[in-house]
């Protein structure tokens, strides 16, 4: 496979900076938009505390269900007079934090299992494949609902649960790439140099498969956002007084007739965010890993 050439310059004569500028000129508008939006979302996630005008539970009882465009409450207020914009900013932070944490957990867990399957083969490999089959057989939403039914909902459980989303994808990729690397290629040569398995996997195989794994992460990340917001929408994910995008849509649904903006604001954020990630992800995939197209 053709691995990313980002780390190893094709033409050393051009400086990294010039090439970066050259690359950026060729970026289509939709991707630029996606990148800008995502940067804004990450900014919001980091600084939600500082930029939101009100506390998320601060009630302005004289201005309940006030319309958007109001100078005091740009996106209006909800049934308790809480500022929708403030709650939206906090929700972005919570939803992105969950999705980010879960994506990392899922990638690490899946890659580790995939490498283990490639390294030990035999029973371990069969076990991992059966687990992957199992994961594929049970729609993730249903499995999450069952686990939440049995254990009740809490933030660590939610992140942990979301961290199982898509692990089998990483496991399959990591296993396949590791097996092909050790069957004929450089990995076997490094084993023959006397390197420990840890060195072979961490120092050689992981950097070689990283770009493919990162591309998979751009696929998993929006799916986790949708999964978490779906659960929260059903009232089984993030619990009040904490708020997340899905949770806001869920509560806003009750006031759909009188105050659709409560639900529309987070809904638009969810859509534009997942759309941006797919646009940027598709573009990255083409750039980084032509084999996945």
């Amino acid at each position, binding site marked *: 496979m053709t691995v990313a050439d980002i780390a190893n310059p094709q033409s050393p004569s051009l400086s990294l900076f010039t090439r970066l500028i050259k690359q950026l000129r060729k970026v289509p508008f939709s991707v630029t938009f996606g990148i800008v939006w995502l940067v804004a979302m990450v900014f919001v996630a980091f600084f939600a505390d500082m930029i939101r005008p009100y506390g998320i539970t601060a009630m302005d009882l004289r201005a309940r269900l006030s319309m958007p465009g109001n100078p005091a409450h740009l996106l209006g207020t909800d049934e308790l007079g809480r500022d929708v914009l403030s709650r939206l900013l906090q929700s972005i932070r919570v939803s992105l934090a969950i999705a980010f944490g879960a994506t990392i957990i899922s990638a690490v867990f899946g890659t580790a299992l995939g490498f283990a399957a490639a390294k030990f083969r035999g029973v371990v490999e069969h076990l991992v494949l059966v687990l992957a089959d199992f994961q594929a057989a049970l729609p993730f939403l249903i499995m999450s609902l069952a686990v939440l039914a049995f254990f009740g909902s809490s933030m660590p459980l939610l992140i942990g649960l979301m961290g199982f989303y898509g692990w089998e994808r990483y496991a399959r990729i990591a296993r396949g790439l590791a097996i092909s690397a050790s069957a004929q290629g450089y990995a076997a040569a490094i084993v023959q*140099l006397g390197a420990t398995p840890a060195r072979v996997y961490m120092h050689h195989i992981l950097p070689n498969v990283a770009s493919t794994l990162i591309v998979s992460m751009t696929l998993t990340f929006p799916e986790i956002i949708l999964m978490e917001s779906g659960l929260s929408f059903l009232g089984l994910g993030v619990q009040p007084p904490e708020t997340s995008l899905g949770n806001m849509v869920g509560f806003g649904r009750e006031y759909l007739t009188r105050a659709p903006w409560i639900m529309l604001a987070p809904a638009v954020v969810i859509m534009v965010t997942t759309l941006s990630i797919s646009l940027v992800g598709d573009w990255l995939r083409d750039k980084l890993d032509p084999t996945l197209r």
Partner: protein
Amino acid sequence: MTSPLIEARGLVRTYEVRQGMFGRMTPVRAVDGIDLKVMPGETLGVVGESGSGKSTLGRMLLGIDPPQDGQVIFDGKPMPKLGTREWRALRAKMQFVYQDPLAALDRRLTIAEQIGEPLAIHGLVPKQFQAARVAELMSAVGLRPDQAGRYPHELSGGQRQRAVIARALASRPKLLVCDEPVSALDVSIQAQVVNMLRDLQEENRIAMVFISHDLKVVRNVADRVAVMYLGRIVEEASSDVIFSTPLHPYTKALVSSVPVPGKLLKGRVILQGEPPNPARRPSGCAFHPRCPIAADICRTQVPQLLSVADGRTAACHMVAGVDQSVAA
């Protein structure tokens, strides 16, 4: 007489091969009872067609493929199990040069990093001297200092193979196993790399097992040559002797297939029949279906590898017969 650096005793390696889509698994003997010795600083050429088991033999000598039967003795001690700490430590003393250097190199690291890797793995050189040692190795294999920061795909095939050789030599091994080290290279480059290997081997007193299908190349480097056919050694002798007076009919065919300038093509022995398939091993002498002088005994009895003269062995009923009649 000094003791051998590496010694193989009765090595056997079989693979299970499925015949057809739903066929049963049948064992295939890739290496079928091989004995050999390599002295310190000596080069043994191993010659044979594809499917003769020569690559498997090379991997077994290094302990990458465990033998099903027999054993490998290195420096007087049996080969430790693959993947153990002892096996890994022993890698500093025995190294491998691959047929395809691009596949053997990590495409995400510069060649200097890769040449220095054995030093880091085995902790051979203090960190501050590593760069100097890498530079020394690079100049020894004929790479320019400015190529240190290059990635494998930025080098030519010959340069990559030089980098692989430099990496193999980094830990100052006592044994180098080269499996078709130049067959993937342009013919014009082949001689350069082979000559460089031979010079390095002589300078550093490294023992070498040089596996190749190409007799011209082997003749150039080997002190002694073992000819393999379907998993067995059929003839072994010093390089000069085997090329001037081959005894085994298979060796004769191989040697006469190498064109010699100024010599007519008359009298060449041309190999007939199918190339050997290890899954369908003929009875008796495995070579008999293609042998111009095969007799009845060749179809039923497996010839043993017997000493036919001082320091030379052959496995052929016809050759052994001649020898015995002379002795009688």
